[in-house]
C-alpha cells in the first residue's frame, strides 16, 4: 500500500479522555448493543460560553438559540436548559420536547415550516414565532384572534437581499420573505399589531460565504430603519446559523487527501474510493470538471471564530464593522447555531463484525451499523473513525497501516458507511469498536431508521465525575442529578 492518507479527527480534551477509556466504551456496547450513540452534555454548555465570549468581546447583547434539529437528544437539550442559551425549534414535536426539557416559552423560538396546530401551540404557550411569510403572519394573527390568545412576539424572516456595487449571488432559499416584498409584510404587521408584536428581523442563509451573510445583515439593518420609520420598534436581528465546524486535526492531511483525490479522478494514481467515485469531480479529456461536493472538513475559521469574522467585517453598503452597526443601533444579536453548538458533543460507536480480504486485493471491514446510523457521507464530511481496540487484545502483533472499505449491515450493495478507502494505523479486528467522533451535529440520529428491522442506535449521556466517566440513558439524564466534577 502507498502512504496512508489519514484524515484524523480534531479531538478536544473531553472527547479525547473518553476515547482513552476503551474498557468503558466496550462495556457500554456490550450492554446496549451496536450501534450506540453517546452524547456529552457538559460540552454543549462550554460551547455556549464560547459563543458568549464573542458577544462579550464585541460588547453585544442578545441570545444564542440552539437549532434543535441538529440532534434529538434529551440530555443535550436539558443540559442546555440549564445554561443561558435559548432554543430554536422547527416542528411541533421539537416544541413539546423543548418545553418538557425545561425551556420556558420565553426561551423558545419557532422557525421553519409550520402547521396550523404547531402555530396554535406556539401562540398558546407564548413562544417567539419566526414568521416565514405574510401568509403565515396572517394565519398566526387569525389563530390569536379566534382563540383570544395574548399578543405573540414575532421575528420576520427575510431573504433575497440586494447587494450594492458587486452583485453577490446567493442560492435561492425556500424560506423567508424577499426584501422587495417587505412593505407588504410590514403593512400586514401593522394591520395585526393587536395580535402580533414585531421584536426583530431574521435571516438564515445556507452558505459558508461571509460576503453573502454580510450583505444579508446589512440588508436587515436597513429594513430595521424602515420599521422604525413606521413607528414599529424591533430590537433584534437574528442572523441564523451556518457557522460551521472544524472536523479535522491537521490541515495538511486535508490538503494532501484532496490533492490525491484529484489525482485519482484524473487517473494519475489508484482510486481512493469505491468504484472510483469522485465526490462531484470528474475528468473530461484530462481536465478536471465539476466541483468537490464535500464539506470543507478542515475549517480553522468555524463556529465562534466564524461569528467573530462576520461581526468584524464591514457592512457592505452602510460601512463600519457589522458589530459596530449592531451596537450603535442598540440592536440585540440573535444566532441559531446547530452543528457548531454540538461540536465535540457526541460519538457513534460500531462493532467490527468481519474483516475480509477480497480476491481483488480490497479489504472490507463490516460493521454492526449501516450508512443511515452515521450520516457523515450524506453530509459530505470525510473524517476517520478512531479504532477502539477490544480490551486485553493489545499484546497481539500489530500489523502495519491498512486501507479498508467500511461496509454496513444492510443487505444492499450501496450500504457503505463511506465510499472512501479509510486508512487505519493497524488492521481492525473482529470485536474492535470504531468510534465515529464529533457526530452529534446531524450525523447521529437525523436519518437513522429501521430498514430491514435493524436496530436504531440507543443513546446514552456520559459525564465526568473526577477521574471517572459515568453514564445513563439519554432519556434519564437530568442536569441536577447527572453531574459530577467535570474538570
Amino acid at each position, binding site marked *: 500500500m502507498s502512504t496512508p492518507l489519514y484524515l484524523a479527527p480534531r479531538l478536544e480534551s473531553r472527547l479525547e479522555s473518553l476515547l482513552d477509556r476503551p474498557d468503558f466504551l466496550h462495556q457500554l456496547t456490550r450492554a446496549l448493543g451496536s450501534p450506540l450513540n453517546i452524547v456529552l452534555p457538559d460540552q454543549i454548555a462550554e460551547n455556549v460560553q464560547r459563543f458568549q465570549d464573542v458577544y462579550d468581546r464585541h*460588547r453585544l*447583547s442578545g441570545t444564542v438559540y440552539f437549532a434543535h434539529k441538529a440532534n434529538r437528544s434529551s440530555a443535550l437539550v436539558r443540559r442546555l436548559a440549564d445554561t443561558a442559551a435559548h432554543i430554536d425549534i422547527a416542528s411541533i414535536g421539537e416544541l413539546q420536547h423543548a418545553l418538557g426539557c425545561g425551556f420556558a416559552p420565553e426561551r423558545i423560538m419557532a422557525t421553519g415550516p409550520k402547521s396550523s396546530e404547531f402555530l396554535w401551540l406556539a401562540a398558546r404557550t407564548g413562544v417567539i414565532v419566526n414568521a416565514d411569510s405574510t401568509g403565515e403572519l396572517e394565519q398566526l394573527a387569525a389563530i390569536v384572534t379566534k382563540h383570544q390568545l395574548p399578543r405573540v412576539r414575532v421575528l420576520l424572516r427575510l431573504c433575497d437581499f440586494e447587494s450594492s*456595487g*458587486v*452583485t*453577490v*449571488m*446567493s*442560492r435561492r432559499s425556500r424560506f423567508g420573505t424577499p426584501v422587495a416584498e417587505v412593505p407588504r409584510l410590514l403593512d400586514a404587521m401593522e394591520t395585526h399589531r393587536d395580535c402580533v408584536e414585531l421584536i426583530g428581523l431574521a435571516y438564515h442563509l*445556507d*452558505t*459558508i*460565504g*461571509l*460576503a*453573502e451573510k454580510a450583505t444579508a445583515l446589512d440588508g436587515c*439593518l436597513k429594513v*430595521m*430603519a424602515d420599521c*422604525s*420609520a413606521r413607528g414599529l420598534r424591533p430590537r433584534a436581528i437574528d442572523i441564523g*446559523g*451556518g457557522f*460551521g465546524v472544524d472536523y479535522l486535526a491537521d*490541515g495538511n492531511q486535508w*490538503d494532501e487527501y*484532496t*490533492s490525491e483525490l*484529484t489525482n485519482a479522478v*484524473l487517473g494519475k494514481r489508484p482510486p481512493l474510493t469505491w468504484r472510483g467515485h469522485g465526490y*462531484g469531480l470528474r475528468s473530461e479529456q*484530462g*481536465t*478536471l*470538471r*465539476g*466541483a468537490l*461536493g*464535500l*464539506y*470543507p472538513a478542515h475549517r480553522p475559521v468555524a463556529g465562534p471564530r466564524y461569528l467573530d469574522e462576520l461581526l468584524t467585517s464591514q457592512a457592505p453598503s*452602510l*460601512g*463600519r464593522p457589522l458589530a*459596530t*452597526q449592531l*451596537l*450603535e*443601533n*442598540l440592536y440585540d444579536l440573535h444566532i441559531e447555531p446547530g*452543528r457548531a453548538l454540538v461540536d465535540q458533543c457526541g460519538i457513534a460507536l460500531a462493532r467490527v463484525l468481519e474483516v475480509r480480504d477480497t480476491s481483488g486485493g480490497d479489504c472490507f471491514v463490516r460493521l454492526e451499523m449501516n450508512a443511515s446510523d452515521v450520516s457523515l457521507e*450524506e*453530509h*459530505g464530511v470525510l473524517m476517520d473513525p478512531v479504532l477502539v481496540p477490544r480490551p486485553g487484545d493489545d499484546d497481539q502483533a500489530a500489523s502495519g497501516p491498512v486501507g479498508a472499505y467500511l461496509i454496513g449491515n444492510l443487505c444492499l450493495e450501496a450500504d457503505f458507511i463511506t465510499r472512501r478507502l479509510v486508512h487505519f494505523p493497524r488492521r481492525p479486528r473482529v470485536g474492535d469498536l470504531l468510534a465515529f467522533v464529533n457526530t452529534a451535529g*446531524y450525523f447521529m440520529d437525523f436519518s437513522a431508521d429501521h430498514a430491514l428491522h435493524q436496530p436504531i442506535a440507543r443513546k446514552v449521556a456520559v459525564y465526568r465525575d473526577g477521574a471517572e466517566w459515568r453514564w445513563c440513558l439519554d432519556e434519564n439524564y437530568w442536569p441536577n442529578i447527572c453531574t459530577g466534577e467535570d474538570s
Partner: protein
Amino acid sequence: MRYDSITEVIGDTPLVRISPEIHGLQNVDLYAKLEMLNPFGSVKDRAAWNMVRPLLADDAAGERTVVELSSGNTAKALAVISGMHGLPFKSVTNRMKVPEIKDLLLLLGAEIEELPGQAECLDPTNTEDPLTKIHQMLSADTAAYVHTDQYYNPRNIEAHQSATGPEIIKDLGGAAPDYFIAAVGTAGSSTGSARALRAHDPSVGVIGLVAEKADFIPGIRNIDEVNEVGLFDPATYDTIESVSADEAIDGMLTLVRRCGMLAGPTGGAAYFGAVRHLQAIDAQLTDRKTAVFIVCDRVESYMSYVRKRRPELLRQPARRNSVATLTDAEVEAAPTIDAAAARRWIDEARPLVVDLRGAFAFDALHIPGSINIVDEIFAELIQAGMPFGRSQPVLLACPVGEQSVKYAALLRRMGHTDVRSLSGGIIAWRDAGAALVRD
C-alpha cells in the same frame, strides 16, 4: 512612436536584466520580461485582445455582452477593450479577493457577479457546480453573450506563442533562454511562450510555478486548481514548483525596492521561484546560462493584499493624540457620568452632547439635542483642531461608553476642563428610560 489605437501598444514589452548583485547567481544571467508595461497593466492584455478581437469582427457581436470568469487582470483588460467598442462587460467570479481590482472594474463600467459560497448543509442532489451552470447559461443564450473562455480558449495560448515567446528570442539576440520561469494562472502565457521557445530550441527548461495549497497569490492557481484549467498540460513544464504568499511578497519586495520594477505579487512569485530554482543548480554550472521570468502586473493594486499579510511593510507613524497612546491610568481618570446624573447635568448646564456613533445609527435614534460626530471623524478633529473651546461642557456618548471614555481621556489630556463620558453609553441611557428621538 505613434499609434492609431491603444490596442496597438499591446506587446513588445522590454526584457530587463536583473543585476547579479541582487540575485547572487554566479553563472546565470537573469532577465525579467516586463509584461506589466502593457497598456492596461498586465500580461493578460495580450490574451484578452487576441481572444476578443475575432468576436468583435463578427457582426452579431453588436449588442452582446462580453463575459469572462475572472477576478483580476483579464477582467480588467476585457473591461477596457469592451468599453472601447461600446460593449457591456460582465465578470463572473467566485470571490473578488482584491478590493482595489473590484473598485477598478466598477470604475471601468464592468458588472461583477460573485458566485454563491458552498452550502453549509450539503445537498447531495445538487451536484452541479456554479461554474458549470454559468457555462450552461452562456451556451444556452449565445445571442446575448460573447464568452472569451480564457481557461479553454486556444487563442489565449496563441497570443503568447506568436508574440511573447518570439520577442524573448529576438531580445536575446536570436537565442532561446536556457530556463523559462512563469507562474501558472490560465496557463496561457507559460504554455504559449514555452511552445515558441522550444520550437526554437527544444532544450529550454520550463519551470511552472503554482501557489501553495492553503495560500492565495493573485493570478496563480494552486496545485489542485491548475487541473481545472483546460489549457493546462503538465507536459508543458519540466517541473512544477510551489510558492507561498509570503515568498511571493518577499520576491515582490526585492523587485520593487532593489530592481526598480514595480511588480505585483505574481511577478514577485516568479522572481522568487526563479532564483530559488536557479540557486540549486548555479554551483554545478560550467558555462553561462540565461533565464527569463515573467513580471505579470504592477504593485499598486495590491496594497490591501500586502496590508493584510504583511502590515509591518506599511508602517504608519504614531500619532501624538490618538486613543492608542492612552495609558490605563489616563482612561481610569477620565470623568464619567451615569445616565441619571447626565439627564440632570443636561438640564442644568446644557453641555454639548456629542454622539460618536455612525450616522446610520444616529439617524434612527439619538439623545434629544445631541450632535453626531462619527468616531473616525472625531479622531481626525483631534488632530486638526476641536470645533469647541477648552472650557465648553461636553458630554460624549457611544454605544456602551467604551469609546467615549477614551476620547474624554484624550480631551482631558489636551486641556479640556469639563468633558464627561456617558457611562454605559446610549444603551444604559435607553435602559434607564431616558428619551431617544428620531428627528
